């Protein structure tokens, strides 16, 4: 098969799986200096210290503290996935995204529904 006239952002796997979400279109981040990795590292340190500071120095009431540090954790997980696990690379997002979506939904399902079901009688603190 000849793929000479293909647009540059299309990856010629040759199996018809080139359909991509534009924002997730695969690209290889390779610069002269690992600036992306350093940015990711600094951001994760900042997020960790921020969450730690919130808890250690009681920056906000208890009711909102746990959701906020959980959101910070999810942001940090997203950073790890996007920057360090190269989610946008490879042969296209059609490969990893469905597996990842399955993993996240099962994981959140197990944890979320366990908490939910236990709240009825005994309570989860």
């Amino acid at each position, binding site marked *: 098969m000849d793929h000479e006239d293909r647009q540059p952002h299309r990856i010629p796997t040759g199996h018809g799986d080139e359909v991509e979400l534009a924002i997730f279109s695969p690209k290889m981040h390779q610069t002269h200096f690992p600036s992306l*990795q350093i940015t990711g*590292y600094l951001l994760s340190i900042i997020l960790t210290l921020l969450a730690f500071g919130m808890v250690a120095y009681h920056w906000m009431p208890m009711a909102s503290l746990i959701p906020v540090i*959980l959101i910070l954790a999810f942001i940090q*997980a997203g950073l790890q996935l996007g920057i360090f696990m190269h989610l946008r690379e490879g*042969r296209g997002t059609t*490969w990893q995204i469905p597996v990842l979506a399955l993993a996240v939904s099962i994981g959140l399902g197990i944890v979320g529904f366990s908490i939910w079901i236990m709240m009825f009688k005994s309570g989860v*603190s």
Partner: protein
Amino acid sequence: MSTTTTTTTLPPEFQDNLESIRIMGFWVFLTTDLVLFGSLFAVYVVFRSRVGLGPTPHQLFSMGPVLTETLILLTSSFTCSLSLYSARKNRVKGAISWLVVTLALGMSFVLLEIREFTTDVLNGHTWHQSAFLSGFFTLVGTHGSHVTVGIGWAIMLAIQLGMKGLTLTTRRKLYAFALYWHFLDIVWIFLFTVVYLSGIA
């Protein structure tokens, strides 16, 4: 092994069809591992307040060492990404050196965790004492054993990189190891938040 390569803008680990499928397979493994950790997180959260006569999370945790462990693991995640970065620049020495740094940081993480567990057990807080401690030791210990396995893997990978250099196979192995290591970092972020930070809040 298939040697069909398509020279494109694809990253080197994905140039080969078969190796791409192997990376995909590793994502599937990570999915099953996430189910394992999800279950343990669920158990922990449900049993967290069941302390019996044992210590509460607030009494048990000392945040100094835990914050150190977290920073060590975050740094090792960073050095692991630098290893892959060097590999993509075709610098095999750089890739091995950063990998060795990564596994050294991983080792110090595991040692700190062992010290933390030993202190707890010597104080009589074993996992027999309460449902909370059972859940805690199982969850954190499973993560720690994953890191330990990762260290063994990194040692073998570093030896292989030294012997074979950067081939299609060793590149893919390094990539899979990086995925594993970053995955463990993500699990630790949630451990840090759900177990330790929520515990002392």
